[in-house]
């Protein structure tokens, strides 16, 4: 009897040891990719597991749109000294302004050198994820925020063409209103409204002026920036009054049903219309750059980095190598509905919209999106939501510009 207990103990101990030995080869990947985006992440993980079969991947997904919940969980984990091995963060200020300035990330410059990535990713993207000479993350996908969606047949029916500038948009808007379209432009909740302001500001200030806002060379109180708010106010008059109650999908639906003519939304809308709504790109729906931003690509990108103190450093470096490889990016992006951050991706794997976006990605001027954490730090983006909300009620361009400047000073933009 005693012997059997002893045996059991030995066996348990042995099992514990093997479990530990196995556990040494694991990696925890923290992201907010669930639901529609889950299969894309699964494809990446599958590729990684094929290359490194001994490593156990722990897919630590926290659901919630645009990472609202995941970011809060991540922050409490980091504060508690328990960083995930590798976590998702929007490339740009959301990464550098939160985690890199806090000295929480490892410099990946040597990885970029050994993999020869410096020539594979556009320079504007590498600049976004660099801070004081170091490169801090690997971008896996790219989305565009300044795309205007419409239904060609509807425009033909109303007898209007796609406006090329915001002034033209206002004229088109009046024409459409005369034809009984109450809200020619449809908007959704707060962040989608901010995307419209972002498009207007980029169009009116130009890419350089837009960048100057974020390096402090252009003040928000400058008359040119006040004008962007004035224009935004006029555009809001073309839009639906119930915007705050609509998700971006519901806003897209109104364009498809013909209640509204235009919608400005990131290119995940293409995925929604082709996959969920089964529409044909080019006929069922069509797109153009938002007015005045032809030749400019407002980008946002998801990226992964290596936090300091990660328990499985080697595995993370291997994971990042897979992420940055052509193979990895082409496995992930066609499923996610985004395009590869690398400029040498295999375009035959992508849909019609993505191919056109990939073409623009290589030729356009690239600037970062404020709404999606590329251009401005989180403290600014979050506060700008309140400023937008006050502006939608008051239409006071001067006050909004002044508040934005106060917020920029508080967020230490350009310092």
């Amino acid at each position, binding site marked *: 009897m005693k012997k059997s207990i002893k045996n059991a103990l030995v066996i348990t101990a042995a099992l514990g040891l093997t479990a530990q030995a196995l556990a040494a080869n694991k990696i925890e990947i923290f992201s907010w990719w669930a639901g529609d985006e889950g299969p894309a992440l699964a494809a990446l993980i599958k590729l990684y597991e094929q290359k490194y079969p001994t490593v156990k991947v722990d897919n630590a997904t926290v659901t919630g749109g645009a990472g609202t919940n995941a970011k809060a969980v991540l*922050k409490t984990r980091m504060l508690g000294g328990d960083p995930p091995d590798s976590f998702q963060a929007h490339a740009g200020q959301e990464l550098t302004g939160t985690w890199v300035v806090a000295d929480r990330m490892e410099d990946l410059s040597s990885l970029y050198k050994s993999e020869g990535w410096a020539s594979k990713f556009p320079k504007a993207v590498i600049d976004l994820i660099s801070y004081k000479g170091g490169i801090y993350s690997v971008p896996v996908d790219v989305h565009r925020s300044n795309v205007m969606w419409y239904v060609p047949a509807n425009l033909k029916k109303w007898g209007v063409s796609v406006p090329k500038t915001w002034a033209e948009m206002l004229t088109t808007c009046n024409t459409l209103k005369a034809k009984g379209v109450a809200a020619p432009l449809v908007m959704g909740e707060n962040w989608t409204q901010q995307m419209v302001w972002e498009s207007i500001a980029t169009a009116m200030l130009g890419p350089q002026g837009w960048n100057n806002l974020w390096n402090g060379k252009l003040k928000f109180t400058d008359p040119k920036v006040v004008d962007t708010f004035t224009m935004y106010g006029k555009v809001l008059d073309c839009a639906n009054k119930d915007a705050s109650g609509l998700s971006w999908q519901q806003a897209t639906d109104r364009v498809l049903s013909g209640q509204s003519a235009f919608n400005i939304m990131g290119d995940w809308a293409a995925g929604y219309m082709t996959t969920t709504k089964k529409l044909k790109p080019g006929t069922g729906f069509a797109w153009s750059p938002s007015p005045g931003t032809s030749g400019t690509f407002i980008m946002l990108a998801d990226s992964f980095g290596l936090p300091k103190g990660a328990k499985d450093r080697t595995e993370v470096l291997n994971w990042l190598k897979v992420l940055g490889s052509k193979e990895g990016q082409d496995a992930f992006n066609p499923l996610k509905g985004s395009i590869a951050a690398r400029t040498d991706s295999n375009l035959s794997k992508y849909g019609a919209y993505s191919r056109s976006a990939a073409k623009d990605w290589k030729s356009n001027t690239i600037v970062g999106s404020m709404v999606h954490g590329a251009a401005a730090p989180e403290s600014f983006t979050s506060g700008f939501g309140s400023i937008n*909300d006050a502006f939608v009620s008051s239409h006071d361009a001067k006050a909004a510009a002044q508040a934005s400047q106060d917020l920029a000073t508080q967020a230490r933009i350009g310092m």
Partner: protein
Amino acid sequence: MKRFSTDRLWSIAVLTPSVILLAVFVYGFIFRTAYTSLTDWGNDPAQAFSLTPIIRFIGLQNYHDLFTSSLNSRFRQDLVSTLFFTVFFIAGCLILGLGMALLLDRNPKAEGLWRTIFLFPMSLSFIVTGTIWRWMLQPQGGLNQLFHLDPATNGWLTSRESIWSFDWNKIPLITAVVVGLALLWVAWRAVRDGQRTRTWVAAGCAALLLLWALVIGPNVKLLPSPELHGFNIAFIGIIIAAVWQMSGYTMALYLAGLRGIPEELREASRVDGANEWNTYRHVIFPLLAPITLSAMIILGHISLKIFDLVFAMTGPDNGPTDVPALLMYITSFRQNALAVGAAIGTVLLLLVAVIIIPYLASQFRTQEGHA
């Protein structure tokens, strides 16, 4: 030897873990949050999530900013919204709950079934309630479709209108007038009761406050420019959902109270010639007063700290329906301003304390009186 009886040891042993847990996870964290709110943690992004952050003590600066800085007008609107929400939520629950209890008290057919139906919403979580009502109150949603209302003019949750607006700059003035009038009332009561000193102190303070309000008050400015805050129409939708959820609870309380009133009292009032309405007014409602108070306390603190219902119904970024608890979450975890978030949390705690502490004090007093 009696002091260390086994019973006593057992009770101490059983209670100790919860006392320790409470001390650490409630009072310790309250203290920690209050302390954090007095620092500048997160005001500099480089320090917010640093492994070894440099956190400086800055006193009440965060509170000062919340109430007076031009960037924090959202917080002030949230405070105003919370007060309006609390008033309408409590009033709605009490009236509806009392109404349902009175109906059930008349012993209708299938009373148990009705009780279950009325009480059922309370068994749902606020997230579920919020999601259901979000569908119903959407511009193209259930209610507008059901009653053939024009979605363009019936934005239950999307309205940007605000009524009963007042200027935040006048808050010191309004406060002084209200407190002054309250003191005048105290003085008048004291005169009636013949308490001399009390009369003089109260009347003197009231006079001082009202004089201040007349002479200096109008010139006190918290902000450089006027700032209007009022009751946002979009809150009506949220109030409907919240009342729907919690009125069953007040019904249960009132029903228990009504059933606890002995039949002799009602008979006695009938014998005295009171009709149905007078019985309710002079006999039953006064007896229900303590229940009303308990219900107000419970509902009051729920409404002050409400988060999940609003999050589910209008999301975290909708200014017209924002509440302080949501703002605290966004400030801490999105804006990374941890100290400011802690300050908002502390303000909320103080608001709840204003409701709960007098109630607890009166409870303890009556218990001692009985003992």
